[in-house]
């Protein structure tokens, strides 16, 4: 009983953080530097990754088997990749006080790291339960 609850909670937390990342990248934390800036492409990719992680996390909540573990680890990888998108994988604007650098980048790093961490814990719990 105990493990069942834990798996659901970790998966749920991961899904909530993915949803926050997705909503943030579309609203408060989206890049507003100008339509022709590089950061808009990065913003779009982050939104897509947020949606993918949300879908994976939601499915993983209901799967407590080997498949659940695989999905959770996949979410972890997505989380790590998403955290690296702003500034490392994709370029952002040059000034640190521009919205993409000041808000979009930290929000993405913080939330993606949280998604990666909780998905990893969920995956480990799935494996141990098996």
């Amino acid at each position, binding site marked *: 009983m105990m493990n069942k609850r*834990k798996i659901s909670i970790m998966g749920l937390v991961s899904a909530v953080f993915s949803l926050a990342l997705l909503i943030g990248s579309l609203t408060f934390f989206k890049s507003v530097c100008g339509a022709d800036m590089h950061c808009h492409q990065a913003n779009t990719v982050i939104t897509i990754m947020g949606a993918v992680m949300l879908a994976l996390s939601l499915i993983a909540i209901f799967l407590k088997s080997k498949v659940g573990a695989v999905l959770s680890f996949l979410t972890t990888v997505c989380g790590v990749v998403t955290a690296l998108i702003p*500034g490392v994988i994709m370029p*952002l*604007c*040059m*000034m*640190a*006080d521009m919205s993409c*650098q*000041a*808000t979009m*980048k*930290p929000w993405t*790093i*913080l939330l993606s790291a949280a998604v990666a961490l909780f998905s990893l814990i969920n995956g480990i719990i799935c494996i141990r339960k098996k």
Partner: protein
Amino acid sequence: MKSFQSLPFINLIKKPVRSVALMILSAFLAISAFGGTIAVMSLQNGIDSLEARLGADIIVEPYEAATKGSFESVILQGNPGAFYMQSSVYDEIAEEIDGIEKMTAQYFLVSANAGCCSVKVQIIGFDPDTDFSILPWVERSYSQELGYMDVVVGASVEVSTSTDIKLFGNACHVVGQLERTGTELDSAIYCNIDTIKAMKQSASVKQLVDYNGADPDKVISSVLIKVKDGYDIDEVTGDINTHVRGIKAVRSKSMITSVSGSLSAVSSAVSVLIGVVWVLSVIIMSVAFSMINNERKKEFAVLRVLGASKSRLSGVVFKEALMITFTGSVIGILLTLAIFALFSDALLSSVGVPFLLPDTMTILILAVVTAVATMLAGALTSAVSARKAAKADTGVILRGDN
């Protein structure tokens, strides 16, 4: 006996909701103390850094710019700006005013948000022969002499050294990056007088800057003055304003004092808030521990029957509280650090005042002090209920009379 040692840990694991709720409370305590103290220290650091960075006693700027607050706007609000006065002002001050130890001119230019420039940014030109304000900072990151079309960028300009950036069609070589100052000067690009003159010419040709008909080579933006020891800064400032027309000399300290005045009010408010949060959290924690231990009376009585001494029982409760508050405070501290480290630029832009995080050692000491203080608060609140739990009459509790 060994099972008693692991009992606090098992208790926490077996009651996850209770443990997590208390950890969140401890984390909240740590966030308020650690975050609040770092915020107050960062504001003070920012002011100190701005004062050190300006390095001048008096700033002379065009009269119109002074009335509009343009210089403050560039430094404090981070609005790129350019204003000019005749360079003859520099010679007039040098000839007519006594008590000047050092004096240097600065040249402001703003790159365009167009194809000719990589980025819209404040460009500040200085004269390496007379400068005492920017050069000491530049020398920390670039020890050689700044050459023609060499630029040094502020800490907030995200560009690697040894790359080229385009400014008014000129390819400028980035040779270094300045240390963070927590002021809007971090968002500027610095170059020598020859480079800024070439850029001013290019901007003039492209009609991107209006010098009001003046020769771009014969205008300056500001003059920074260091007063000789033994001279009164206010008197020298007054002398300049009396003898030189079309300019305004201001004491740099008065500009900073106006900012630090408003900051001290903010700092006091934050300190009061930290105190209120701490008092409330300690009260809530003490009530929570008391209620939890009250509910666990039968559990404690069983442990006493199994042979646990009063001191061992209170030790179990005490250890549980320490584990909870330690984990909570670590989570709170890490979360606060992550937020400050990641959102420092956003904080700087939103508060509109200099904001410089303390150095790593100070942060580390603060983190340890916060963790110890949080654990102490948790331990003290739980100690009272632990004593009560140990003193309760086992027989009465197990009979269910209480």
